[in-house]
């Protein structure tokens, strides 16, 4: 891996795979590094193997999931390394290249790229309710990827609590697989339909199939016989005698407190860009007030404010899997153009299809953002809720300093929040929002943790292996 590559793609989800396919079409020398054992990212987790070894499971996982197999196929032939965890993207060298450092099986390796594409996607928004650290509390995405990857499912009472398209999709996949769900607690704030109506015409025009699918999912949930609690808030997970989750408490639309027994509680309040690598390279980020998260600032091709570093897919802003494919293609086209593999008119011509489709995806996203806004309580956790899971810092502890801290990085110095192995992934947004709220500023003014290498823990042995 010592030679300089044209393009280093990080992440083998829809954006990375589509970029790889496009890069291959233009004979770019690309390498793809992905942390999972298999390609597909989260949305297409393990899809190639599932299609080959467990084809019957595609029946309940659905056609949109099965589509991922064609993406993996389109990206075949690319130099793809699975189980490869990237933990550093270096500054530009004198020759304009940039070093990416990654580890696999306890050994660190370097690769230099003329360009780098960050396609590390989204993660589920942290949901800091009291008891969310209990064993048995997990996320909707976690239940879904486990079903895809390993055909496993919660065997006891599964309670789904949250808001957004993903809980609807999971409920339908579980129904189709005949896996029972004990209850669905819908935390979508009331009155959203009226607010969202204005976005329906453009979404219907831009992404009619997806809109129809969404409506079908809603109808299927309401007919499935699973009890659905609407307009819920004030969630708390409660432990049983064995220390694992035993029940979830919440307030229903009427304000009454309810309690439902649960062996597994799956939370979900939307997805946000995984910020580690775009932050690491020092790219400029902008607060998205509707999606309540930071997005890296990019040009229309996905290039960040750091020259030669591109971002594609949900890591650049939440638009969904279909748009991720398009943005991966667009980034690879821009790289091909920069490295002289195609001229400007060819670039524009080949980009048009993906740009058109993105208009539709944006229209759909405006509708989804209006329908499923992150609830306001996400930024105001109960005092006894753990905010930083790694260092076990509660909302009360953070509140005690939030009013007078200079920002998230000073709060980190005060409390150690964000200093554990997850490096702030599961507390960063909460800390920013709580400080902003305490100081009467905006999250944009408050800023975010400074992210430094290594973005994943490495051993001294791994560091030493770099000099071999």
């Amino acid at each position, binding site marked *: 891996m010592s030679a300089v590559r044209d393009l280093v793609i990080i992440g083998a989800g829809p954006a990375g795979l589509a970029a790889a396919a496009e890069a291959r079409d233009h004979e770019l020398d690309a390498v793809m590094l992905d942390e999972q054992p298999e390609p597909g990212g989260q949305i297409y987790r393990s899809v190639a193997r599932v299609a*080959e*070894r467990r084809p*019957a499971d595609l029946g309940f996982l659905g056609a949109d999931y099965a589509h991922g197999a064609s993406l993996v196929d389109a990206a075949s032939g690319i130099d793809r390394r699975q189980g490869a965890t990237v933990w550093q993207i270096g500054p530009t060298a004198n020759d304009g290249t940039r070093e990416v450092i990654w580890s696999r099986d306890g050994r660190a390796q370097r690769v230099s790229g003329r360009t780098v594409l960050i396609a590390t996607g989204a993660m589920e928004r942290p949901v800091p309710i009291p008891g969310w650290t209990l*064993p048995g509390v997990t996320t909707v995405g976690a239940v879904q990827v*486990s079903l895809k990857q*390993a055909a*496993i499912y919660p065997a006891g009472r599964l309670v789904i609590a949250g808001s957004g398209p993903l809980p609807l999709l999971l409920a339908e996949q579980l129904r189709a697989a005949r896996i029972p769900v004990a209850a669905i607690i819908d935390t979508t704030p009331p009155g959203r339909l009226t607010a969202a109506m204005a976005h329906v015409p453009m979404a219907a025009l831009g992404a009619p199939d997806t809109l129809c699918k969404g409506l079908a999912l809603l109808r299927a949930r309401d007919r499935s016989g699973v009890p659905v609690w609407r307009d819920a808030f004030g969630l708390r997970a409660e432990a049983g005698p064995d220390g694992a989750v035993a029940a979830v408490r919440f307030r229903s639309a009427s304000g009454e407190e309810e309690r439902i027994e649960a*062996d597994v509680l799956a939370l979900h309040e939307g997805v946000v860009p995984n910020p580690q690598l775009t932050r690491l390279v020092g790219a400029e980020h902008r607060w998205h007030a509707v999606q309540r998260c930071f997005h890296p600032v990019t040009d229309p091709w996905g290039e960040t404010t750091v020259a030669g570093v591109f971002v594609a897919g949900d890591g650049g802003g939440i638009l969904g899997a279909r748009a991720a494919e398009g943005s991966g293609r667009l980034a690879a086209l821009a790289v091909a153009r920069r490295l002289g593999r195609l001229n400007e008119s060819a670039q524009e011509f080949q980009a048009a299809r993906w740009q058109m489709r993105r208009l539709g995806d944006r229209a759909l996203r405006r509708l989804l953002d209006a329908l499923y806004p992150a609830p306001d309580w996400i930024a105001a956790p109960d005092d006894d809720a753990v905010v930083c899971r790694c260092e076990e810092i509660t909302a009360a502890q953070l509140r005690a300093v939030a009013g007078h801290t200079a920002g998230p990085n000073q709060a980190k110095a005060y409390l150690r929040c964000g200093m554990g*192995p997850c490096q702030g992934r599961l507390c960063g947004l909460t800390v920013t929002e709580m400080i902003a709220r305490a100081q009467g500023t905006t999250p944009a003014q408050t800023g975010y943790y400074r992210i430094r290498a290594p973005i994943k823990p490495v051993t001294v042995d791994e560091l030493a292996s770099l000099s071999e």
Partner: protein
Amino acid sequence: MMRFARLPNPGRSRRIVFLFEGEPVEAQEGDTIATALLAAGAGATRTTAVSGSARGAYCMMGVCFECLVEIDGTPNRQGCLVAVTEGMSVRRQAGPAVIVEDAP
């Protein structure tokens, strides 16, 4: 108690046997350590370094670090990112690491 089951039709997936706390555990091709341990009913797989509270897998996608286990003698590995292989030895993690000092 948190328990995961596996769908009955494994298709053409191979069976894999690995060791958990020294005992053989059956897994299926495609499993990560984290999915295999969920299916085996392992429950909480570590206690935290700060308070010693019990934790189990949370995100299953490599961001939360709750599924940390010891794999073939190396602690702090993310179970959700490591594929199970035949004969692999996996152990729970209890609290903070213990630093063994050399005898003077």
